[in-house]
């Protein structure tokens, strides 16, 4: 039988160390909503999502009460709209009406965010994909809950540099369209390489075409729990350190597995995956950077950071994989800047630069995340940053992403404030040497070779 020590340990994790289930995300296929008439398409989308997810919030809240563990977000991901809207949408503004439908249904159901305003263009863009991408600034400036993502590369296809160039312009336009609010539109827009089909985390979540009609994916969190566990093994060797992270990740993931199975049962929707990510929030003690410090760095960004993060990321996966029957999504450690107080402090102290962050993305899940840069950064420079990050993902067969915010009207030394889970970010300097000629070439970077590995 369960003993008092175990009960106290679990409850201390929840109450003192910010253990929570970060999100229950319902994936919904919209392929059966496709219609040539735009109004009909919007009606179909609203109805399908509403009917599928109307109980998501109440079921999530009830599970949270029964087990005494917070479930922070309830979200929805849908089939990439670039695939759904092609028959009905002839202009970018046509696509933006779908974004507003998604926004309305998300608000009516009461979910926090809806993702899937997306295009998959890793090898080429269809007309519909291009229209969707061009509609992103309007879509994100006229909605609140909609998140957008564009997959511009993969290990199998290479990198679509036309799309990379376009995304540099679109990110800038989105920043301009939301300049009154520190360009917050860009915090809901992510550019991906090797995007997974079953990711429950925003802004990159969409419901892949290889998925079932509806699915429940759960993202766990718990940087604070790992940090506290590591405080008890200060000064011990790497073996002890790694074992401690593994055991903690196991426990955290088990909670995610329980919540996912329960939500799946009560909603009558199949269980997809648990995403084992350490996802920080701006709350004190809920920081991945603090774990890196606990491992032995004065600040995140100090020499040794990439090694420490590689170790952390790997141990989280090793501990978590056994705890869940199906693991998927992004699974690893997130290193957003604005959403992690420890990262913010590192940037302010000059310990962490954009270049070091890029190195860190080679060994962790995702990539350059929630980074504020000067508003006058050139479009091509943004495209260059994207291209670098996509190349890391393509060559290393991993998911990488760029969610970067050129804050219009602000420069280095100032800060952008997004509020809520998005937090705030000091504006980081960007290398200003030009990459115009490189970005303007046009075409694709071929897929990398996978033999001769050495």
């Amino acid at each position: 039988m369960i003993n008092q020590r175990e009960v106290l340990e679990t409850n201390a994790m929840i109450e003192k160390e910010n253990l929570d289930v970060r999100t229950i995300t319902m994936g919904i296929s919209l392929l059966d909503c496709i219609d040539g008439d735009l109004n009909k398409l919007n009606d179909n989308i609203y109805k399908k999502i509403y009917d599928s997810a109307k109980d998501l919030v109440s079921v999530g809240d009830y599970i949270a009460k029964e087990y005494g563990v917070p479930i922070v977000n309830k979200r929805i991901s849908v089939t990439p709209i670039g695939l759904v809207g092609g028959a009905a949408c002839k202009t970018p503004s046509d696509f933006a009406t779908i974004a507003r439908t998604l926004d309305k249904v998300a608000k009516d159901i009461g979910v926090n965010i809806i993702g899937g305003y997306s295009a998959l263009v890793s090898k080429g863009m269809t007309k519909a994909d291009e229209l969707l991408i061009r509609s992103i600034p309007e879509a994100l400036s006229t909605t609140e809950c909609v998140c957008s993502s564009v997959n511009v590369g993969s290990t199998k296809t290479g990198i679509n540099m036309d799309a990379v160039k376009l995304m540099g312009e679109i990110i800038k336009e989105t920043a301009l369209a939301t300049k009154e609010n520190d360009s917050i539109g860009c915090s809901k827009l992510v550019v991906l390489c090797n995007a997974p089909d079953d990711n429950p985390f925003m802004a990159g979540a969409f419901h892949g075409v290889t998925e079932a009609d509806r699915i429940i994916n759960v993202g766990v969190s718990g940087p604070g729990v790992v940090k506290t566990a590591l405080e008890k093994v200060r000064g011990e060797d790497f073996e002890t350190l790694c074992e401690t992270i593994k055991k903690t990740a196991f426990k955290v993931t088990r909670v995610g597995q329980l919540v996912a199975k329960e939500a799946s049962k009560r909603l009558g929707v199949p269980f997809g995956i648990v995403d084992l990510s350490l996802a920080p929030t701006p709350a004190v003690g809920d920081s991945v950077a603090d774990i890196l410090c606990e491992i032995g760095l004065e600040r995140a960004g100090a020499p040794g950071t990439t090694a420490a993060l590689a170790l952390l990321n790997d141990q989280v996966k090793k501990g978590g994989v056994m705890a869940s029957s199906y693991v998927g999504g992004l699974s690893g450690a997130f290193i957003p800047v604005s959403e992690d107080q420890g990262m913010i402090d590192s940037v302010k102290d000059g310990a962490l630069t954009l270049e070091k962050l890029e190195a860190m993305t080679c060994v962790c899940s995702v990539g350059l995340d929630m980074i504020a840069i000067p508003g006058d950064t050139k479009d091509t420079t943004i495209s260059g940053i994207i291209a670098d990050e996509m190349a890391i993902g393509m060559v290393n067969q991993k998911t990488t992403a760029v969610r970067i915010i050129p804050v219009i009207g602000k420069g280095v030394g100032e800060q952008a404030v997004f509020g809520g889970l998005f937090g705030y970010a000091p504006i980081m300097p960007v290398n200003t040497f030009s990459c115009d000629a490189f970005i303007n070439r046009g075409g694709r970077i071929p897929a990398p070779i996978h033999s001769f590995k050495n």
Partner: protein
Amino acid sequence: MKKIIITVVGKDTVGIIAKVCAYLAERKINILDISQTIVSGYFNMMMIVDMTASDVHFSEMCDELDKVGEEMGVSIKCQKEEIFDMMHRI
């Protein structure tokens, strides 16, 4: 069996166990196990109870025990057993 773990934490005072037990008896909730410690004046109790025979709904029980706790200045938390089983047993 519908096993629930009840934890009571707060400053020690007379009659905490009595009041919680009186409520459980009234609601036909059976106590399977109790363990309790006091560390520097702080009361810490864990109960494992079975609510199979009870006519009260889980969320109602949570709210009512909340009130019982409030009256004594302690915090009472109810959770289904599975979360602990999942976390601490393979």
